[in-house]
């Protein structure tokens, strides 16, 4: 039976209002709540549903990040993943390097499906899944809102600008998730206790022999330019008059 490999990125929780550091060197992360990247949580939920329907034998969650990313992996185990792999990296690495690390994990685990979030809500790059599929020389189905498995193929419905697109891919393949694929389950206390006993393997990034050198220099973090505050009109009549005055309606 087949394995599903799911990537879990540790990111600033989506409810946190992110602030830029005064010196422009980054955003404030000290003392800020960290969580599983929401799109990755959807990926894990989908993997668990596939396994529960008999479509997979094992769900493995993997994170690349600091030792603290164990927290997110434990949450993934509590949701129902069977085991976890942490690739410990003390510095953030770029998506291409992340894809190279995942390729190493693929060589080790031979999964049938790699399920990733479509983007991390920190860097908003939206690259890793596509890059991994390219390096692996396998199909990619990005922005998935529906996944139907049929033997060695999968039919994936994708959220595209024009509406919905369905493609058929041979497995193994990389699938990245969009918001509407599913609603992730809540973790219950007994599962959190059980998750503590599930295997969590730690690998050191340096031991994998992967080129993770940064290709980009990122600097000058700044808050977005503020829009000028406008005026409050008192009723519909004033609104229509103002729109006409701006030439926006006839």
């Amino acid at each position, binding site marked *: 039976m087949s394995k599903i490999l799911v990537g879990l990125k540790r990111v600033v929780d989506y409810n946190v209002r992110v602030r830029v550091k005064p010196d422009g060197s980054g955003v404030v992360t000290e003392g800020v709540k960290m969580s599983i990247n929401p799109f990755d949580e959807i990926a894990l939920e989908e993997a668990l549903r596939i396994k529960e329907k008999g479509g997979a034998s094992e769900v493995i969650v993997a994170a690349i990040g600091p030792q603290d990313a164990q927290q997110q992996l434990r949450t993934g185990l509590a949701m129902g993943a069977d085991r976890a792999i942490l690739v410990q990296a003390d510095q953030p690495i770029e998506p291409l390097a992340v894809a190279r690390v995942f390729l190493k994990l693929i060589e080790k685990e031979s999964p049938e499906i790699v399920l990733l979030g479509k983007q991390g809500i920190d860097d908003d790059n939206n*690259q890793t899944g596509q890059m991994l599929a390219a390096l692996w020389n396998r199909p990619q189905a990005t922005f998935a809102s529906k996944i139907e498995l049929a033997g060695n193929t999968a039919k994936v419905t994708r959220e595209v*600008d024009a509406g919905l*697109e369905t493609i058929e891919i041979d497995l193994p393949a990389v699938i990245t998730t969009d918001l509407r694929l599913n609603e992730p389950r809540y973790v219950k206390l007994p599962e959190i206790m059980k998750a503590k006993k599930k295997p969590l393997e730690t690998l050191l990034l340096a031991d994998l022999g992967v080129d993770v050198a940064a290709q980009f220099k990122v600097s000058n973090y700044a808050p977005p330019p503020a829009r000028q505050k406008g*005026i409050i009109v008192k009723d519909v009549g004033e609104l229509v008059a103002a729109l006409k005055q701006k030439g926006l309606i006839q």
Partner: protein
Amino acid sequence: MIKILVIAEHAGGKLNPSTAKCVSCASQIEGAEIDVAVLAADAGEVAARAAELAGVKRVIKVEHGANAEPIAAIQAPQIVALANDYTHVLGPSTTFGKDLMPRVAALLGVGQVSDIMAVEAPYRFRRPVYAGNAIVTVEAASDRKLVATVRTASFQAASTGGNAEIQTVQPSVELPTHTRFVSRSAAATGRPDLQTATRVVSGGRALGSAEQFKLIYSLADKLGAAVGASRAAVDAGYAANDLQVGQTGKIIAPELYIAVGISGAIQHLTGIKDARTIVAINKDSEAPIFEVADLGLVGDLFEILPELERQLG
């Protein structure tokens, strides 16, 4: 010498306006020579339109039956074969470009700059991170190919009036068969396309139901506008996901944006901050949407919308 290849986006024989935005971004790189690649089964009409874009030197047609639909795994190796002659490869930051360009970058062994919103130098750009809560400078080394996507809302479309030479190229690369197009269901609404519309009316959770969301369609039709929705309205099932405006949906820059019953979560504001005029209608005068609105009206949308339609005639 900076040579830029822009990957054209098109469907149904029509060039997507995102291509003219990418050309415009490319034009801001000083001294750049700009070519546009059109991968299609029959590129004729699309290539002719691309050749009219100001600043384009050459249009390269790559015609192949396998290019009838834009499948990233099939297009990427063809683009890699073309990329030899270029320093930069640009695509739009639409679902088409987001799907395709990272695959191209990885095959070239380089990273990608996503969502360019401003050009500072040939290898230095500004881009948004953290749902637009921060803007950063990204600088790449000039001895590597630069692959990037262009945030279309940040650039005006290149004007027409150009007359580029059109060439046909047949890269000899093996194309995979592991990915097959099945179908596409476009919401055939007869309304303008949300991504490119000059007017957009969006509804939020305050609409309360899919039935009441029809008030948004009604106002949009009166204005000849496209319809959008907040993530909350989409999550609640009032509107389809392809109408979602915001960081996780579409990023748009219409002339007029009317937000109805939308509180203005940061992830929504990220999607509209390049709109020329923002109108907010909301019953909560403290709603964050009023911080960015040019015109605000505080009140009950169920009273305001019918009245607004009446006054629009």
